[in-house]
């Protein structure tokens, strides 16, 4: 697994009239930054480590994926519930200034939904290969139904690269490997509730409501969520900037960490 230099602390807030406890992993110093994780759940990586040098990262775990609380997902019926729950949770952090939002894939869709529903919630928005749009001529791959053996090729331009291998590796300890596999499958199930069977819930109708500076980053070789959607997002969000990265699949912050970091840091500074 990825080496980290710091260990995040945990902060919890009760939301949804007390029915859900949202768990945030918190790390770093500086301007507040909300990181919204992808469909596979929250995984700490060098990209987040680097961002934490200049930002305080608050990363909420989607209900159901927090340790010891798998049933929480059943309190969330649909994407509208989820958006309200996240807004409530972020508001209850009582941050001094509106945070930056960075979202990857599923988290990118969620970040865009939050920014569209609540135009004053975030200071800036960074979307890394966000899902949420659908064109019949460029269907997204169904990552939830894909055989596990095909996932690496959906996620990475080069599944054999050390960064990809590090992300895909399972713990050596058999018990920990079972726990990691089960957690990954369950996270895909929890997030799948909001995007199954087609990851499109009308976001295209709402993107025009986003009014904060927005950076859209896309891997040019994204086989899960084709790069044609970068321009779709860019055209729908007024004043946004689109950056595509060569030799890069669906997870730019893992496959092309340095380039992604530079783009994001330039945008945020």
């Amino acid at each position, binding site marked *: 697994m990825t080496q980290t230099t710091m260990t995040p602390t945990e902060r919890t807030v009760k939301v949804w009239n007390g029915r859900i406890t949202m768990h945030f992993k918190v790390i770093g110093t500086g301007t507040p930054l909300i990181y919204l994780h992808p469909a596979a759940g929250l995984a700490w990586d060098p990209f987040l480590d680097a961002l934490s040098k200049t930002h305080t990262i608050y990363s909420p775990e989607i209900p159901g994926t927090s340790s010891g609380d798998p049933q929480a997902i059943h309190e969330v019926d649909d994407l509208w519930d989820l958006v309200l729950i996240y807004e409530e949770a972020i508001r209850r952090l009582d941050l001094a200034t509106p945070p930056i939002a960075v979202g990857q894939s599923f988290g990118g869709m969620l970040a865009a939904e939050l920014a569209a529903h609540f135009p004053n919630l975030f200071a800036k928005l960074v979307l890394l290969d966000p899902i949420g749009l659908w064109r019949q001529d460029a269907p997204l791959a169904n990552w*939830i*139904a*894909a055989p596990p053996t095909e996932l690496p090729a959906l996620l990475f331009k080069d599944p054999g690269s050390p960064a990809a291998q590090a992300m895909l590796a399972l713990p050596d300890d058999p018990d920990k490997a079972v726990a990691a596999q*089960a957690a990954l499958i*369950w996270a895909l*199930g929890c997030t799948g*509730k909001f995007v*199954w069977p087609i990851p499109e819930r009308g976001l295209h109708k709402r993107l025009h409501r986003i009014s904060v500076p927005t950076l859209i980053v896309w891997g040019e070789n994204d086989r899960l969520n084709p790069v044609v959607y970068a321009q779709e997002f860019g055209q729908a969000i007024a004043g946004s900037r689109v950056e595509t990265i060569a030799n890069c699949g669906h997870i730019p912050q893992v496959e092309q960490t340095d380039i992604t970091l530079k783009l994001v840091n330039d945008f945020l500074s």
Partner: protein
Amino acid sequence: MKVTMFSQVPYRRLPHDFEKKYDSVVTTPWDLVDPEEVHAAFRDSLDEQLFAARSGFDGVAFTEHSQSAYDMAPNPNLLCSALAYATDVEGLNVAIYPVGRSLGKAREPVRVAEEYAMIDAISGGRLIAGFPVGLAYDANINNGVPPIETRARFDENLTLVLKAWQEREPFAWNGKFSQHSAVNIWPRPVQQPRPPVWITGIGNPVTMKFTLENGYGFNYFGWFGYKLTGKRIFDRFWEIADQVGQPRNPYRLSFLHAVCVGDTDADAEREYAPHIAYFFNKGLGSIPLERLALPGGIGLPGLHAILRDPGDFGLYLKMRTATFKEIVDAGCVIVGGPDTVADLLSQVARDFRIGHLVPMLQLGSMPRELALKNVRLFAERVLPRLHRIWADEGWDNYWWPERLGGKRPEYQRPEEARTLERI
């Protein structure tokens, strides 16, 4: 013991190298098909069932599989209603058992309640109502239900169906998955307060407990190889029965299994082997795991259990390439002369306290003549021995239509299905 013949409607002419060249039997391109063979498959399947009804079987059964080449039956109720009418005309007192319509899949549960009520009306009270939770590829991929919602949808839909059957006055329904300003279905089932309810499962203890606590029958299929899975599954069932304080009445347990009867053991092996291989290699074996189990369909504790011990899946994980010997040795099918088959089935029934047997007598590419022979030999040589099992213990059969000798249970009306524990 009650014996109900089960059939699928398989496409019987998949190419010989299908399992090597094609991804799966649930994503098969329609271009492979000869339309005449599709017609023949339906005709033969219904003929074989009607022949079973005429030959002394206690019931006839189909089930639901959409978008599949191994069973072209997206709605078993169309087939079962044809049999309900035909058996009524001929005065054949057999149960009509749609093993599913899956309520985890159904987006129109009131329609399911109506269709079952129609079959009960057409048959004059001979319906057995099957409600499987739902296969992942069918409920989730074919019908778009999020995997994590399958159970909750099943739970709510079953409650609605039971209420629609039993409530005397029109009622409003404000569910999470469906809303109706007034439910007042016509017809209601002939069997009141409701027909017997059976749930088919593959061994999830939550489902077993649910059936035991609510007075439903539990049906298990042995295609994964009962010699590998049977003891685990059936012992688990009876242990849960003990835990919830239900008597070990064998009639609450059903076993659906592939059976091939020949004139002799050698004849049976020779005649049926190619069709057994077709059924298991091209059919069940060509449903990839990721289409039988999708993320969200199994809860976190269940995932831990399955990842540590996948034993409930038996031979399934290597079914696509399994040899005839492996298939028979695992007990995926019982094949032999009449005495061999009767001995094995009697032993299975006695060992595991099974009161209902649901033999599947047409498999894969098996042609009409051979399937009819299988039905005939089973009816003449195996059935009489099976019918005697449990007769000596005097149990009441609450899971069988009253008109056909079942005993009506006492219900509180209107009956509400208890909420399924989340898995």
